[in-house]
């Protein structure tokens, strides 16, 4: 706690920029080697960014989701993998903040997250036909006396080995339906990870989203008191779409900045002539503004609905959050592709100030993490009955 004073005296955006500087320095190495961005995470912890959204009474700073999203934008400009690890951690924090209220175990745990700057991972995917279907589980928690045991064949646990704690979904008990789920946080030392699959991917190579057999034993009160169905519907899906979109916007923004610098350098070399890429910079800026507007309006809608289960449960809210995810994930690819056309071979090469390969590859993950087809399918079901609100002020 001795380090907390001087660092947290600085503003959150300032601390985010300092961490982002470190993330940017190692981004290409992390991408090339497909390794965990440990320097960036160390910097985030040194800047005490892990617990900012936790309330002050527990040692956090009570930051809003919009403020945390802005940190994701800053980190996204530096290193997509680092930003994604941070965003995923904050998704767990958002769930624990609102759905573990009154639990002594969780109050102490959230205090530890602030004090020790713990990184929380997540294990929702499962082998055996569940895949990424968040709202179904095969495995079940086994409660005997005060002890809970769980074994999960998790196809993906992002940054599993670097996590200090992991939040795991499962069925409520061995007789429960696949969708009757609970969520449990186990801390390091309470679980073992037996690696089953590697993470050698096109992009987001630093998230190290390997597969593991997860085996854990903890205290019964580590099972979150609220059903996972409620946490997923009211917090996790919306927060995921918003924080992911924020960092995707950051990735696209950095690509845009490279394209803009490229055109500016060309304009300086040939004064009086408009470089051929200039028009595309204008097009990319236009698309980027749409992405930003999408994320900002989504955050505004979330902050307005926060704490109101009726508003968070409304179909119109779910449709809006889904649309933010679809719109952002599709548009950033167009933006980065424009930038690639602007920078030409300098963007295509991996070793220039205008390189865009990492941005483009990282951005391709956006339409897959919760597949856009699955999200659109879900939205189309809701639109059988839901009528979008046309009002601009409603």
């Amino acid at each position, binding site marked *: 706690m001795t380090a907390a004073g001087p660092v947290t005296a600085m503003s959150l955006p300032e601390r985010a920029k300092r961490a982002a500087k470190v993330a940017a320095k190692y981004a290409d190495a992390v991408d090339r080697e497909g390794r965990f961005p440990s320097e960036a995470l160390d910097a985030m912890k040194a800047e005490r960014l892990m617990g900012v959204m936790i309330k002050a009474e527990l040692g956090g700073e009570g930051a809003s989701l919009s403020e945390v999203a802005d940190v994701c934008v800053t980190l996204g400009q530096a290193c997509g993998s680092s930003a994604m690890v941070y965003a995923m951690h904050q998704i767990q924090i958002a769930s624990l903040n609102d759905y573990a209220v009154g639990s002594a175990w969780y109050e102490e745990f959230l205090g530890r997250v602030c004090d020790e700057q713990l990184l929380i991972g997540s294990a929702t995917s499962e082998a055996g036909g569940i895949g990424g279907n968040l709202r179904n589980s095969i495995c079940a928690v086994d409660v005997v006396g005060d002890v809970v045991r769980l074994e999960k064949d998790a196809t993906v646990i992002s940054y599993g080995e670097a996590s200090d704690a992991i939040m795991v979904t499962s069925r409520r008990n061995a007789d429960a339906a696949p969708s009757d789920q609970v969520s449990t946080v186990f801390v390091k030392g309470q679980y073992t990870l037996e690696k089953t699959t590697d993470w050698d991917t096109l992009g987001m190579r630093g998230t190290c989203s390997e597969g593991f057999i997860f085996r854990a034993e903890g205290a019964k009160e580590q099972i979150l008191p609220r059903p996972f169905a409620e946490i997923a519907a009211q917090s996790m899906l919306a927060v995921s779409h918003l924080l992911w979109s924020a960092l995707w916007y950051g990735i696209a923004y950095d690509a845009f900045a490279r394209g803009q610098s490229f055109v500016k350098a060309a304009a300086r070399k040939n004064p009086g002539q408009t470089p051929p890429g200039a028009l595309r910079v204008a097009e990319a800026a236009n698309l980027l503004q749409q992405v930003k507007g999408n994320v900002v309006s989504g955050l505004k809608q979330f902050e307005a609905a926060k704490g109101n289960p009726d508003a968070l449960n409304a179909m*119109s809210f779910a449709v809006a959050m889904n649309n933010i995810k679809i719109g952002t994930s599709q548009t950033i690819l167009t933006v980065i592709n424009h930038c690639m056309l602007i920078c030409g071979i300098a963007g295509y090469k991996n070793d220039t100030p205008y390189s865009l390969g990492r941005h483009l590859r990282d951005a391709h993950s956006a339409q897959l993490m919760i597949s856009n087809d699955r999200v659109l399918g879900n939205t189309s079901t809701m639109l059988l009955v839901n009528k979008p609100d046309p009002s601009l002020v409603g």
Partner: protein
Amino acid sequence: MHDVVRQLLAKHGSLPVSVDEIANNADLYDAGLSSFASVQLMLALEEHFDVEFPEHLLNRKSFSSIDAIAAAVSEIADDQAA
């Protein structure tokens, strides 16, 4: 009302358990009601009662139990008859 809701739930709810085993106040999501099935059930209720669910009832709570569905349908039927 509860009988009709039960019949439509059995037909459109795609539940892993029999509707007969579900109490009127039991949580249908815990019983395995998916969001897709809840919309199918909503459409079936609209068709059966010749009503349309208004925006404020399009949420998880309205479909959280047989009691809640019956209450929601009664509310709409009263509103739309008035």
